[in-house]
């Protein structure tokens, strides 16, 4: 069973963050929210592992174990 990765794992974090901001550029708040929702679903599908996804949902909720 895989564990959710919570240590740095993205090479070039500044490049990634800039690209993330750039897809939101010029969007209305509602369109930005919708984009984020689609992004979550796309990434979730890529991960696929149900256990990891459950851990990710808990991690994002900032719930203490």
């Amino acid at each position, binding site marked *: 069973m895989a564990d959710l*990765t*919570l*240590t*740095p*794992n*993205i090479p070039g*974090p*500044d490049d*990634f*963050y*800039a690209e*993330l*901001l750039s897809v*939101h*550029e010029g*969007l209305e*708040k509602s369109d*930005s929210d919708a984009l*984020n929702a689609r992004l979550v679903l796309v990434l979730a599908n890529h991960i696929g592992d149900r256990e990891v996804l459950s851990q990710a949902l808990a*991690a*994002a909720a*900032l719930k203490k174990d």
Partner: protein
Amino acid sequence: MNKIFEVPLYPYERHADQDASTPARHKVIVVGAGPIGLGAAIDLAQQGIEVLVLDDNDKVSFGSRAVCYAKRPLEILDRLGCGQPMVDKGVEWNIGKVFFDERQVYDFNLLPEEGHQRPAFINLQQYYFEEYMVNRVRELQEQGAPIEIRGRNKVEAVGTHDDHVKVEVDTPEGSYTVEADWLIACDGAGSPIRSMMGKDFIGRVFEDNFLIADVIMEADFPTERWFWFDPPFNKGQSALLHKQPDGVWRIDLQLGWDIDKEREKRPENVIPRLKAMLGEDVKFELEWVSIYTFQCRRMEQFRHGRVIFAGDSAHQVSPFGARGANSGLQDTDNLCWKLKLVMDGKAPESLLDSYDVERVHGADENILNSSRSTDFITPKSDMSRVLRDAVLDLSEHYEFARPLVNSGRLSMPCTYDGSPLNSADALDGPARTRPGSPCPDVPLGDGYLLPKLGGKFTLLTIDADAPDVIEEDGIEVTRLALSVKDDPTLALKQRYLGDNDSGVYLIRPDQHVAARRPSFDENQFRAAIRRATGKE
């Protein structure tokens, strides 16, 4: 109290040039006696080139201004003969703390790589920095070097010609005309020379104001960098606390765009803000307050015939990441050896175009990095703020989010990838020392590598044979012969050889790698020397 920045360091004195019937001709005029102008002048004078510095003022910088100096500029300053007093006086720090809202979300230790003579960076007020450079100018003058600073000499007009530059200079005793073979404009972001020449300066304006204050504190705060996002004492904005020498603390407070600058600068408005930040009981004295706005922009070209721009006059960045003075010193370090070769007739004038290519590349890298920091610190849209706050919230709980927190990235020297002066990489060695890279330092038992490289073309051989001297079309290259055994820490091997048993590097006067191969090959290295001096 008489502060160092209130005493004239190069007071106006009448010069014979002002009474000359025909304008005096100098080799090089540097306009501006800030860190970059003085750096250029010292570099040229050390190489025996006559240089005149003109400055409209007669004192060092007012207030702390540029306060962070990174390793690379310190290494350059060592070659300029004034690195040691800066490091002796400067404050070194490694611990940083990040706060979000009312809480500390994490702290970090920079853990600088070992085996370097100089620290990752130091904090030092710009007035000390300039004072030490002026001291170095005086020392060179005593040794007979051809260097002069004229205070309260304000350039009013510039005339450009094919083989010289003519300037009109205003002084307390009227104006005079003076000429030079070359002019280096280090007259700051608002460069009057750039305006006089009608050159572009295009980029992005950030609609924000920052209050900066130098505060003398009795409190025993640790030597750490503290950065606040959205703190209770400056809601919706950011704040930074940094230690400088003499118990002076530098505080930066973001104020937003729609403010009354004059009102915000008054002590009765500044002091309550600082008390809210430092705590009601902390005793402090306000030394200096200023408000700044900034832009990220650069000139399209830094060289315009015989007028060459360096430092903030050529490119301006946001202050996050300390890339102003640090990149300006890399400009002049890149320029001065090339100018010397061109002036001596040992390289074609086109070598100076590589200054444009290489330093425009550097400026773009700095502008990108500092724009990103600014976008993180001062989000410009709702979603940008939502994402930023999400990163900060996550950073408190998970290590993965911390590299995404951007309160300013450490200024690193750029690698001149793709420069016309580079020869193709012929060593399957470490990426950090590929052609175009600044040489990383290495401990060598009795000292360090960089001082041994000095400021001339060097052939660095590591467990490889080569002639002691090669001369190629007027360029003399001397060998520095080393062995991996010279460094028991193995940094020399790791940084310059990787898996190879030997290596030969051609290193430029500014300590950037021009070429490297596993062993000496005379034809290849002669070609590399020609290429590195603009002859191929």
